[in-house]
């Protein structure tokens, strides 16, 4: 270790020990994937909210339920979660209504079950990858810390062979070790923020779906009674 140190970021990473490099690689990969999911979820949640808004406008705009169902089941356009819930419920409602000897409460029960199944499927789709963000957010600081501890251990082990120990002997090792912590934090902070934000968004969408299901079953019950 010379007196004049080139502490550029690239040389720091290149001179780091293999373990630290592996840790950095792992953190880089997890950071990349988490950012990918962050943007993916951002788009998909925005789309879900937009489609729900559009379908609710159509639904409460006085449109006929049959035309709405045909529009949803035609598959000509990408359907939102709320539209699919309505489609599943209305299809089950029509099937049960056609069968003779069905009590109205039994028809409504079947319709509600069909809507709930679709609702769960939609929620699963919306919540996909959020657990990965949570994992990255909670684990990657520790992974970075592990890399840092390993790097500092190496730095001090190298220091034991030197007679006159100065800060200049340890500084590069510690700097390269701290890069691991920085990387871990860089991976963790956006993941945690995105996780919190997206769970909140998913919860709001779920509440919208559930309230829609209740309202839709009410309307269907009225139609069945008439």
């Amino acid at each position: 270790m010379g007196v004049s140190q080139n502490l550029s970021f690239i040389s720091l990473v290149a001179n780091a020990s293999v373990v630290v490099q592996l840790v950095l690689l792992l953190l880089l990969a997890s950071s990349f994937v988490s950012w990918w999911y962050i943007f993916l979820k951002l788009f998909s949640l925005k789309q879900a909210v937009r489609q729900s808004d559009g379908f609710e406008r159509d639904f409460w705009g006085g449109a006929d339920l049959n035309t709405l169902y045909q529009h949803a089941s035609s598959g000509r356009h990408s359907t939102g979660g709320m539209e699919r819930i309505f489609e599943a419920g209305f299809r089950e409602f029509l099937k049960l209504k056609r069968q003779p000897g069905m009590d109205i409460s039994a028809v409504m029960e079947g319709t509600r079950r069909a809507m709930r199944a679709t609702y769960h499927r939609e929620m699963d789709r919306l919540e996909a990858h959020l657990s990965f963000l949570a994992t990255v957010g909670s684990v990657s600081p520790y992974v970075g810390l592990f890399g840092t501890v390993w790097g500092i251990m190496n730095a001090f082990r190298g220091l034991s062979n030197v007679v006159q120990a100065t800060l200049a002997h340890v500084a590069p090792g510690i700097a390269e070790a701290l890069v691991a912590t920085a990387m871990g934090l860089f991976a963790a902070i956006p993941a945690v923020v995105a996780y919190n934000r997206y769970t909140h968004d998913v919860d709001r969408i779920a509440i919208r779906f559930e309230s829609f299901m209740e309202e839709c079953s009410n309307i269907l019950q009225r139609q069945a009674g008439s």
Partner: protein
Amino acid sequence: MHDREEPGKFSAGVLAVIVHVLFFGLLIFGVNWHTKQPEAVEAELWSSLPPVPKPRAVAPQPKRVKQEPKPKPEPEPKQEPVKPKPVKQEPKPEPKPKVAKADIELKQKEQKRREEEKRKEEERKKEQTLKRKQQADALKQLLQQQQTMEAELLRQQQLALQQQLQAQQSAAQARTVSDYKSRIRAKIKRYVILPPDIQGNPQAEFDVTLLPGGDVLDVKLTRSSGNAAYDEAVKRAIYKAVPLPLPPGGELFSAFRELHLQFRPKDDN
């Protein structure tokens, strides 16, 4: 029906790549990773400040003295060539009356003329030799003056250096003396058990006679603090603090043979 792909997979990947490129660009170009080593070297030099003023103090002195000899030699050669001029004028009036008297004997005149010419030539030669001698003397004097000036300069510089060295040594000695005095006081202070009923911050002064090993030979109370218990406590502490810390080598012991120490119950020194 549900095999829809999630929207924007590709654009999300591109955005993630952009975020990482931005982050690493910030790390590599935004942070100045190059440590400036020269500053650290400068900091090390400052620790040896005392020798630095040496050249500053000595350097201006020769400049001032060098400027002085330059004007001196100029007037001297001007004054000296003026002196031989009256010598030239004196011989000229003497031959003229001699020439007017010689009418009868041409030979004598010729002889006289020859003799006079010879004399004149001799006088001229003498004058020339005189002039040369005077010029040489003047040059020698100038050289001697310059040499003496240079010697004086050297002496002054050496004297200044010696004085500075002595001053530094004495300053260093004074520093070590005061340092060890404060150490002695600190060590004694450690052993002082303060009596509980001290009012104010009275000062007790002691004359302590030391032996070369740091042993205390004698302790005299020269000025009481007004609190006998505190005086006694300090006196006991001085005996308990044996051996007192002294600078190694024993060369500076003369400064510690008779110590005049002052103690206050509440100062933090």
